[in-house]
Structure formats: C-alpha cells, structure tokens
C-alpha cells in the first residue's frame, strides 16, 4: 500500500473534516436546543454554496470573504423558517417535524434546480489552484484556508455559547427546556436564534467548501445524510461530539475512497451509520437512554 | 399453591438499589396492598412483575410458572395485567375501541372482542361515555378506562398502580367500590396506593416498602401500628411523639 497515498488521504480527510464539523455543529445545535431534526440541513448548505457562487460570479467577491455574507443570509433564512414554520410544530409528533423539514428540503433543492440548473457548478478562488508541499504530501492551499476558517468559526460559536447571555440561554434550553422557560427565558427567541445560528453555520460551511468541490442542487441529500451520520456518531445534541465526529467521518470517508473505490465510499458512511444506530445510538458523547 | 410467589427479587440501577431481595406472595382471590413512601420502589416492582424490567436477581412465579425473562405481552397472556401510574389511553380511539384492543387478546374475532369490550365498559361504569374519544375524558374516567382495558384481557391477577391518584373523595369512593367488586368476582388484586384510607379499606394484607426493602407486612391493622412503618413515612420523631 502506497503510504504517501494513505498519508495524503488522511491529511485531506482531516482538513475537510473542518467543514464537516462546522456543518454538524449547526445541526446538533438545532437539535440540542429545539429537539427538531433539520432534514433540510444539506439543502441549506447547498444554498450556501450557490450564494457564494453568485457573489463570486456576479460581484467578484472571493468566497473566503463572501462566506460571512452567506452565513448572514442563511441566518436570516433560518430565523424565517423557524418563526414561520418550525415554531408551529415544536410540540407535534416527531413524524410531523420530519415531514415538514422534508418539505422544506424539497422546496430548497428544486428551487435551486430551477434557478441554477442541474449541472455541477464550481467557484473559482485565486487560491483554488495553489498547492503547498510538505515532504511527499501536497496540500491544496484552498483546503488549508477552508479548514482554518471553519475552525475559526467553530471557535467563535463556542465563545458565543459560553460567554454571551443568548448563548447561555441556548445551552440552558438544550439542557432543560422546561426549566429554561420557568426561569423566564424567552424560549421563542432562543429557538429562533438557535435555528438561525445553525443555518448560519451550514451556510458558511457551504461557502467555504464551494472552491474545493463541485456541487449541484441534488448534493443536498448526501450532505444531509452525512450530517446526520456525524451527529449520530458524535451524539445528538453534543457539540464536542459533532466536532469530533466531523473529523472522524471525513477521515473515514477519505480512507474509504483510498482503499475501496471512490464511489463505494458512501457504503462506508452508511454502514457506519447503521452500525451506530443499532449498537450505540447515543453516539460517542451522547447520554445513553436509561 | 399461591398465585404469585416472589423471592429474592432485586433490581439495581447503576449504584442505586431500587428493590432489595423482596419476598412476597399472594393467594388466589387476595387483595394485597403495596405501600411505602415515594421512591420506595413500588412501581419498579410492578415493572419487574409485568416484564417491563428484568430483575438482577430473584424469582417470580406466577401460577407456579417462572415468568422472569418473559416479555410483557406474554405475561399479560398468562393472566397478569397491569395499569400504569400515568394512564396511557389510546387518544385517537373511543372508549369502547380502547377496550376492544385489549379484548382482542382473548377474542381474536372483532365482533366478539367488541361484545366483550362493551360488557367491560358497562362493568366499570363508563357505559354512558362508550363512544367518546379517550383523549377527551376526565382523569377519573381515564382511570376507569385504564382499569377496563386491563380487565378486558381477562386476568387472574390485576396490578393497579396508584389508581386513586388525582381523584377527589367521591371518585375515590366509587373506585374503591369498583375494585372491591372486581376482587369479589374472583380476580386477585395487587395494588400500589398512596391513599391510606383506600388501601386500608381494600386490602386483605399489606406489604410496606422503604428504599427498596420490605420493612413490614401483615393485616392493615398490624401494619398501621408497626413503628417501622410510621418511622418510614413520617420520620422517627413520630414514633415517639415529641413532648408538647
């Protein structure tokens, strides 16, 4: 086995894991605070990608700058979705929530399809072509920057949750929704913020990925499933779990691509998902049900 | 041969001893009260008996047969039925349809099950509300429904978990009458209850649990006078009342 290939795959997977982590953190935040599973997560990320593409193609803004705008746009979108739709079904049976978000996913994916067409798109960044060599292994500078920015965003999110009032309210609501209400937390506001922040994470993640990978409207489903994978592996509602899980899954996929054929790497993800669902649905960091 | 024979029943949750080496037996036709302060492990005992939890140690013999390891539905079929402390009606079904689901266990044909269900609904006094949706019933009626469902499985032993909880005085009296009638009809009853008057009135014998262990058993009068029971419920100072 060609060790450089393995090493390459490991590094590449690790770096890409930054994005996966950011994506998963957004999903787990929404679930942790609101107990809602965002089936439209991957499709929101795709919209992050397309927004970055628009900014780049129409306004010449580099995605590594524009990602902030994408995050903001998705934040607003998340707020809207939460206030307009999700809020109404917070207490409904889970099946209803799933179907609602599935509906949102369908709309997002197909509006993108109608607006942007089915062909894969890619965003050009001046960094896209640059590479750096470390010994026999080369790294795309773009991947490095993506990783760095994703980590920065995750750190910022962490600070937000730990230091700000709103962030602390979110964590309180995640721990004990009823208790949070009792002490006077404006739960509606916290929910809206959580959904918004979760969407912002995934919007940023999308923008940061756009220079690295081609994407199309139908990419949404795969990204949603990957997000669920990561969040389940890491533990639903656990932020450290999502973070570690993102890197883990990315590396696993990368190794899957190295050792099996690239198209079969999805089998690795799904196989892993099934195994976790069956044997440890609480995930690595989650609490096992009593 | 006794109807129910429990020996050495033990259940731990992590480091917590929920039920400790419990011995218990019931004769056919008996009404046994299971009391104890909150957290004593009473509902855990029910869960162990009915198969919702498996014991770490101990034996449970129902009608001579070892039922440890059987699933709840199997135990129900053998003749031990239970109600839940927090009632669980099927909210989208009517009262009679709720009971019909239970009756189907003994009468697979829908028509017979419906007949049987109607009879049970009358028997518990819900006849007037037979067609009402279970989701819209009052608490007292929901308790009756819970009882009716368990009855419809034609048990020989009925486990009632705090069937009086949340009821007012009149409703409690009615429920006591109902349970007495059921027991008089030949069904043995094991009941968990906090309402002391009801327990004392209904039970032939009482077992008292505290922190998972049996601290007393006997007739209602014996148990009421037992200082260990008074201590468990009210604290030590009530065994020797404080000087004024």
């Amino acid at each position, binding site marked *: 086995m060609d060790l450089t290939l393995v090493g390459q795959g490991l590094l590449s997977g690790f770096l890409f894991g930054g994005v996966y982590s950011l994506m998963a953190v957004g999903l787990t935040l929404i679930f942790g605070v609101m107990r809602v*599973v965002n089936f439209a997560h991957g499709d929101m990320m795709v919209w992050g990608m397309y927004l970055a593409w628009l900014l780049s193609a129409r306004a010449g803004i580099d995605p590594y700058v524009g990602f902030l705008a994408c995050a903001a746009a998705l934040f607003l979108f998340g707020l809207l979705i939460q206030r307009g*739709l999700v809020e*109404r*079904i917070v207490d*409904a049976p*889970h*099946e209803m929530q*799933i*179907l*609602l978000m*599935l*509906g*949102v*996913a*369908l*709309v*997002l994916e*197909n*509006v993108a*399809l*109608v607006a942007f067409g*089915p062909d894969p798109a890619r965003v050009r960044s001046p960094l896209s072509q640059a590479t750096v060599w470390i010994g026999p292994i080369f790294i795309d500078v773009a991947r490095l920057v993506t990783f760095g920015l994703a980590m920065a965003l995750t750190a910022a999110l962490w600070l937000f949750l730990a230091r700000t009032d709103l962030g602390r309210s979110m964590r309180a609501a995640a721990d004990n929704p009823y208790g949070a209400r009792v002490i006077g937390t404006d739960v509606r506001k916290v929910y809206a913020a959580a959904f918004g922040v979760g969407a912002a994470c995934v919007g940023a993640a999308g923008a940061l990925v756009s220079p690295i990978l081609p994407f199309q409207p139908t990419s949404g*489903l795969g990204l949603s*499933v990957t997000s*669920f994978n990561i969040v*389940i592996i890491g533990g639903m509602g656990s932020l450290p779990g999502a973070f570690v899980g993102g890197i883990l899954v990315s590396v696993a996929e990368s190794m899957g691509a190295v050792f099996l*054929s690239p*198209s*079969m790497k*999805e*089998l690795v993800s*799904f*196989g892993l*998902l*099934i195994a976790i*669902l*069956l044997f440890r*649905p609480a995930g690595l960091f989650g609490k096992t049900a009593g | 041969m006794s109807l129910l024979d429990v020996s050495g029943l033990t259940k731990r949750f992590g480091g917590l001893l929920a039920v400790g080496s419990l011995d218990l037996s019931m004769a056919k036709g008996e009404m046994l009260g299971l009391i104890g302060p909150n957290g004593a492990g009473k509902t855990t005992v029910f869960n162990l008996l*009915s198969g*919702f939890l498996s014991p770490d140690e101990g034996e449970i013999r129902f009608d001579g047969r070892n039922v440890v390891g059987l*699933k*709840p*539905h199997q135990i*129900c079929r053998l003749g031990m*039925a239970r109600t*839940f402390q927090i009632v*669980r009606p*099927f*909210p*989208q*079904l009517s009262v009679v349809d709720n009971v019909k*689901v*239970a009756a*189907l266990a003994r009468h697979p*044909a*829908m028509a017979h*099950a419906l007949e049987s269900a109607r009879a049970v609904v009358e028997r518990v006094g819900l006849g007037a509300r037979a067609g009402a949706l279970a989701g819209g019933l009052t608490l007292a009626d929901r308790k009756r429904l819970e009882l009716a*469902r*368990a009855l419809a*499985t034609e048990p020989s032993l009925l486990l009632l978990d705090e069937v009086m909880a949340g009821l007012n005085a009149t409703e409690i009296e009615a429920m006591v009458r109902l349970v007495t009638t059921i027991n008089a009809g030949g069904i043995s009853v094991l009941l968990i209850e906090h309402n002391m008057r009801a327990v004392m009135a209904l039970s032939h014998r009482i077992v008292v649990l505290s922190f998972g262990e049996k601290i007393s058993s006997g007739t209602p009068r014996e148990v009421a006078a037992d200082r260990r029971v008074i201590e468990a419920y009210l604290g030590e100072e009530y065994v020797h009342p404080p000087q004024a």
Partner: protein
Amino acid sequence: MKLLLLLAVVVLAALPWFVGSYLITVMIFIFFYAYLGQAWNIVGGYAGQLSAGHAAFVGIGGYAAALLSAHAGLSPWLGMWIGGGLAALLGAVIGYLGFRFGLRGFYFVLLTVAFAEICRVIALNVDAVGGALGLYITFTGNPRQFQFQDNRAYYYVALALMLGATAAVRAIETHRFGAYLTAIRQDESACEALGIDTLRVKMQAMVLSSFLTGVGGTFYAFYLFSLQPNAVFGIPLSVEIIIRPIVGGAGTVMGPILGSFILSPLAEISRSYFAQGGWNGLHLIVYGVLLIAVVLFLPQGAYPALRRLLRGRPA
C-alpha cells in the same frame, strides 16, 4: 358510500374506451402510485413507522423480475412473486434491526434511508446488474412477459393492483391486525401491557408492505422498460411513494388513492406547463409546499378532513 365507490370503479373500468392515450397514461401513474402508497400505508400509515426508503423494495422487485426474465427466461408473472419475496426479505431485515433495537421516529427513518442508499450504490457499481447504465428490457409486446401492445392493458393491470391493495388494507382495518396496528401507532408500551406482541405485529406490517411494494417493482420495470439505479432506488421515488398517502391521509383506506388523484395531476400540470426552461424540479417544489401545508394545516391528511366536511361535523 359503498354505492358511490362501486360507481367510481365502474367509471374507471369503462374510462379507457372513452379517453385518449395521454389521459390513460396519466391514470396509469395515478393507479400505480396509489398502489405503492397503499402498500406503504400499511407500515407507514397504520403502524406509524415512517419509512423513507421504500424505493429500495421497488428496485429489488423490479431488478429481480427483470434479471430473471432476461437470464432465466422466467415470466415476470412469476418473477413478480420472487421479486416481492426478496423485497419482503429486505423488509424483514430492516424491520427486525429497527424494531428489535428500538429505533423510533427519526432514527428509523434514517435506517430506512441508509438501506435504500446502500442498495442504490450497490446497483450503481455492480456491473452484473447493469451498473450505472441500469437494465433495459427488450420490448416484445408479449403478454406472457408482462408486456402489452395496448396501453389499456397496463391501465387495467394498474387499476387491479390499486384495487387489490385497497381491498387488502380495508380487510386489515376490519380485522384484529388493523386494530393492533392503530393501537401500536398510538402507544406501544400500552399495547405490550395488553398482550400485544408489538415486535411481531410491526414485523408483519413491514414484511407485507415491502412484499407488495416489491411486486409493484415488476410493474414499474415492465411498464417503463428501464431500471436506473438512481431512479428506482433513489429518494425521489421514496418521496413519490410516501407523499400520496401523507397528503391524502395516512392510516386511512382512501388516503393514498385520494392523495394520488390530487398529486399526480398536479405533477403532470407543473411538469408539462412549465416544461420550457423548467426542468423536472417544479413539480417537486409543489410537493414540498404541499407537504409543508399538510403538516401545518391538515396533519391527518385530506381524506379525514373531507370526510368531516361531508358529514357536516366541526373539525
């Protein structure tokens, strides 16, 4: 009510002699998707186990029948049952894993999606079953090979499937199995305490549902003459399957049929009207909006609401 239904069946049976080929094709899809929806309804509607991977059963059924026909010369009329059986086997595996391990709600949905996607990826990559190109069925027009020259023959087969599945669901509803399913959907633990073997009942529902869906796969294969892994195992087909009973009324006999009569024409209209520039996407936007609307305003689906309206009772 019964008279009305009988009349409707008579009208549907007579219809092909009065309308053109395009409308017949639309009706075929209405019937076929109603059939698939009805099959899903057993486990998704009545038992309340949301499966978003039912396309896997269509795919397995279709591929099995097609391969048996091409390589073993087995008539699809027989291959249909084998395909259904294989689909039922997968259904049993998924059901057992899901139910035995206590997966509910979101986790169960994900399990079904995972299995469907695994099937899809395998079908895409294994050349022996056609790989990325999929399978093509040679047109012979031979009824023994489940092929008909006349569109109207397919119409009657599809109609028969829909009516058959509906009759099966109606029978379930009026027997113990149906009562148990409905109860399990509402409170499983209570059911266990009442002597119901919930694992067994749910397994039966899953196996029956997947079997019927697999049988439908044969119709799919021999009506469309091609099986593409992405189309026949993919999420879009699973969505098509579940949206009709959900919009029409999950857990009701008429729900999937009503849903299909609402959704298929809608899909057709949005597909053909916005064909220029539009791409396939638009009818799925409509689906998405409908799904959202149903969840928010009519969670039980159109049929129960319609029934209340017709009987004049308040909601």
